[in-house]
């Protein structure tokens, strides 16, 4: 683990004597390596490590008998601070219904998260409506309907009289909001198709959905096993949508989750939820301290 590696590094460098400023700078390589192995973005890891070095030089690390342990504590505290902070909840609209737009890359866990969020809001005493605005993926509407039925939440979807999905996502979204108002549903959760940040047409579509459905909350759903590319997608989606928060999924796996730090550093938006399994009940608020420990392995 990182503590052992740092202790070992300090012992080698100082030869059991007193460590000095140069030793601290030399062990930053170990810290950076640990972050890279945890999938933290290369440049984020570099600037993070530089910040850690400055902090370490100004503290008790130099005088400590367990400098490795002290240094890890500094790294941990800095991670917790960077990962945490800022609002965790959904920003509800002053004039119902609250509209929540859910977006992200293909396969990140959006549709499942929509089901989870619907259950979570129901448990809070609200009356959610799910909008099936993924009009492309085969059986996406069926998937949302199946999940919605599990938690007894209605779905708004558009199909023609042959049962074929009407491929107009912005229309589904805006009509769902109108339907919510009409049927006293106080939250609308819009599930959208997975899309690449480099697909101009699809990015224009989700921007259009935002413009017309006027969500008070936009959530960016990210797979916690994402690697270096996390900053590119987060930055692009944030430029297009200025999202309010991030949802990290598949945290029940053993991915270290460095993407969380990368995204937080680059777009500076809060991580609001953690999805921890395939069941709709497996949704938690995001815990920065648990994430910090996970990233450090």
């Amino acid at each position, binding site marked *: 683990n990182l503590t052992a590696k740092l202790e070992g590094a300090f012992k080698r460098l100082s030869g059991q004597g007193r460590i000095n400023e140069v030793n601290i700078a030399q062990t930053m390589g170990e810290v950076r*390596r640990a972050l*890279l*192995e*945890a*999938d933290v*973005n*290369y*440049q984020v890891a570099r600037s993070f490590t530089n910040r850690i070095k400055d902090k370490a030089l100004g503290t008790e690390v130099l005088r400590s008998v367990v400098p490795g342990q002290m240094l890890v504590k500094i790294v941990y505290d800095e991670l917790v601070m960077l990962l945490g902070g800022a609002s965790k909840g959904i920003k509800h609209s002053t004039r119902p219904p609250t509209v929540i737009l859910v977006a992200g*890359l*293909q*396969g*990140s*866990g959006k549709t499942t998260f929509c089901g989870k969020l619907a259950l979570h809001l129901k448990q809070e005493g609200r009356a959610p409506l799910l909008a099936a605005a993924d009009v*492309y*993926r*085969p*059986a*996406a509407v*069926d*998937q949302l*309907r*199946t*999940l919605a039925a599990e938690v007894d939440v209605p779905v708004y979807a558009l199909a023609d009289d042959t049962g074929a999905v009407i491929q107009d996502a912005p229309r589904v979204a805006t009509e769902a909001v109108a339907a919510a108002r009409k049927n006293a549903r106080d939250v609308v959760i819009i599930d959208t198709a997975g899309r*690449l*940040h*480099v697909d101009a047409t699809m990015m224009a579509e989700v921007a259009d959905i935002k413009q017309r459905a006027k969500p008070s909350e936009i959530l960016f759903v990210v*797979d916690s*096993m*994402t*690697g*270096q*590319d*996390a900053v*590119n*997608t987060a930055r692009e989606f944030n430029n297009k949508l200025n999202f309010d928060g991030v949802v990290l999924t*598949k945290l*029940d*796996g*053993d*991915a*270290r989750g*460095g*993407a969380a730090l990368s995204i937080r550093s680059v777009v500076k938006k809060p991580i609001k939820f953690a999805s921890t399994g*395939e069941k709709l009940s497996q949704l938690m608020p995001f815990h920065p301290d648990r994430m910090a420990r996970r990233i450090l392995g």
Partner: protein
Amino acid sequence: VRGKATVDDAVLDELEEVLVSSDIGVKTTVTIIRHIQERVAKDRYLNTKELHALIRDEIARLLHQRPRATAGNSFESTPHVILVVGVNGVGKTTTVGKLAHRYRQAGCSVVIGAADTFRAAAIEQLEIWARRAGASLIKQRHGSDPASVAFDTVQSALARSTDVVIIDTAGRLHTRTNLMDELAKIKRVIDRQLKGAPHEVLLVLDASIGQNAVHQAAQFTRSVDVTGLVITKLDGTAKGGIIIGISNDLEIPVQYIGVGERVEDLQVFDAQRFVAALSI
């Protein structure tokens, strides 16, 4: 003798950044850089352009695992059975559809097995893909035993002399022992039913996955002896560098790459093209 025999630290730093940023991983990056340093010590290099060519060559060497014969229409034995596995959301079901289409284009008859009996609307999703590809589909009711679906699919292929069987499975995290055991059971059932089957076990990896792919590959190989890798979503900006270390360390060839969401968006893996796209 012209040229340099060592690489300056500044250049090494830049190389490390390019490689790690492609998700090649620290361990494999260190290996590549060490090999490069050995090579230039021996053969020298003139400029950065030459150095980058050496790196691309070194990566191509690590991707030396030759893909097995892919989507043609001659098999050692028929039916040719393919089991498709991987963690949640990587693109298995879509890849099954694309693969079926590819075999159909080559003139083969294809039957798909809907062995994801767990996830919401998984069977409905696969039904649409089977129709798009012109393949038949074997399914049972939602919640049934996936091994039983796999059995039925191979049975149908034997009865109807179908050329290719492609079995879709539910996404599962490699950390779930019970789900990995379920997968091993699916493979056992197929093997008992038809000697040598499944002839291919394809592990599907998403190009945007980071180092966790290494654990996925190790665990899936332990459970069902993966014979080939498929890397999807290369139409995004993720480089998919994780396959370099995995392919080399586990000695598994990359068979196909997914480059989009349409039925024709599957390509046979080409190491040279992949390396060229790493922008090194």
